[in-house]
């Protein structure tokens, strides 16, 4: 269960377990977490907890609430977030399940009573300028309402897709250069270097011969996608399986030679 550690100037005052759906914090003694300090408003903030998730909401306090140094109105708390109210700090702990039990922990479970609606309404109990009203759940709350309307055929957009270039380009030139690239050795694009910045990079000529290079935690792999003839790596044709690329492997696809290499 999630908890908060309340401290001032590095001295821990107490630990609060977030067992209630709504935990209030303020200067007045009736709060769940009373903080007797003039910088704290009478009813300063509330923490709403729904099963394993917690949200903090500032109740229009005079001096505001900071989370990780930033003023917030409402914030979805993450493990290790630091809430600051005046000189008081509250550190939020929501231990991620330990690895050994992760499998069980994340198992899909059914909940019979939707608990979402209750806290949604309690959020609105702040004094004066009422927080943006929570829209009343529509009666058909649980029915699919996407912008995809059942059975109203959208106008078929012209499939004016320009023919993709022979070589897919890394889409975002601003993304930090990753650790590998391919250099084209022959053909019209000879000399060009393509950084492998995406998880998937397709190479070749669509409709003729296409392969994909996938970036995985263990390295880069090349797989044949389409075409009767399979690309070759160092002169050996690919099988149907993915093949891991090694530094300076020579790829030949759609009549073009290119070299895979790890950047220094």
């Amino acid at each position: 269960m999630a908890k908060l550690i309340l401290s001032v100037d590095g001295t821990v005052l107490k630990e609060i377990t977030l067992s209630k759906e709504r935990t209030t914090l303020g200067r007045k003694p009736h709060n769940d977490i009373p903080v007797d300090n003039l910088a704290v408003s009478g009813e300063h903030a509330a923490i709403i907890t729904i099963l394993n998730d917690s949200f903090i909401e500032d109740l229009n306090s005079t001096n505001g609430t900071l989370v990780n140094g930033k003023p917030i109105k409402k914030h979805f708390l993450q493990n290790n977030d630091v809430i600051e109210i005046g000189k008081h700090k509250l550190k939020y702990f929501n231990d991620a399940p330990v690895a050994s039990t992760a499998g069980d922990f994340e198992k899909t479970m059914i909940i019979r009573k939707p608990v979402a609606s209750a806290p949604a309404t309690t959020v609105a109990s702040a004094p004066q300028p009422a927080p943006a009203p929570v829209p009343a759940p529509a009666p058909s709350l649980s029915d699919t309402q996407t912008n995809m309307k059942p059975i109203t055929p959208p106008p078929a957009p012209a499939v004016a897709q320009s023919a993709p270039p022979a070589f897919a380009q890394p889409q975002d030139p601003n993304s930090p250069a990753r650790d590998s690239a391919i250099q084209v050795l022959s053909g019209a694009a000879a000399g060009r270097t393509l950084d492998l910045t995406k998880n998937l990079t397709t190479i070749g000529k669509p409709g003729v011969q296409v392969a994909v290079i996938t970036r995985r935690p263990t390295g880069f792999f090349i797989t044949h996608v389409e075409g009767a003839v399979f690309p070759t790596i160092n002169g050996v044709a690919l099988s149907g399986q993915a093949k891991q690329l090694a530094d300076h492997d020579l790829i030949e696809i759609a009549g073009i030679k290119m070299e895979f290499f790890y950047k220094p």
Partner: protein
Amino acid sequence: MALTDVLQIVSLTDPGKVRGHNEDCVESRPELGIVVLADGMGGYNAGEVASGMATSAISAGLASSWTKDVLKGLDRDAAMALSLKVVQEQTAKANAAIYAAAQKDPHCAGMGTTLVACLFYDNFLTVGHVGDSRLYRMRNDVLEQVTRDHSLLQEQIDSGLISKEDARSSHNKNLVTRAVGIDPEVEAEVHSYDVLAGDIFLLCSDGLNDMIEDEEIQMTLIALQSNLELSAQQLVQAANDAGGRDNVSVMLVRVLKSFAVERGFWAAVKSWFR
């Protein structure tokens, strides 16, 4: 026109990197345009019992209630109306069967399953779903989620409590508000949609969409759309590379061409010569 010539279907299911066994189940009957995916839950082996019962009961139930004889003489609207009804009915039947089994066998007590079931016919598709297994559609390189999860998180998003971005880091991802087999009765959410040639539909369990973003799914389907099998493999692999914390199942259905049902005089004449 046989639906097997129209629909290219690829199914792949994988236990993932953490779970010891696979509680997902997939089944398709291409000739009838039926594609079903279920993600079971429950102790011991009850999860896969529930999902297996759901997929086979629905496939078999649709096969027996969605027949040429029943469809004879129906125009498209009537067929669509009927499809909504049979998907709902078959889900109810599967629910009753799983519920009864759970009551009878203590090992299976409390078992249940999510479900997404598609029926393709006459240039439309009828989808019924329960829980957080999803149907997506990719049309003209744009991926859209067709179904909306029956989950606590989705309800929180709908009520404005949590933003879609924050939802990704929620700890409440695994809570569904509806499931097949948990209660004596369940209502599937059933809708029909028009289908165009070139559409690619993706059915998946939450082991896919919890591990990788929709953008990555879309990128994969665009990059590899010429090879549906590889697309499915790549999606499963990406979910596993991202941690594979749950079973992951992927079914891809590519609509190769229009599959309007011929009706009227000529269809009648033709049918004499078949």
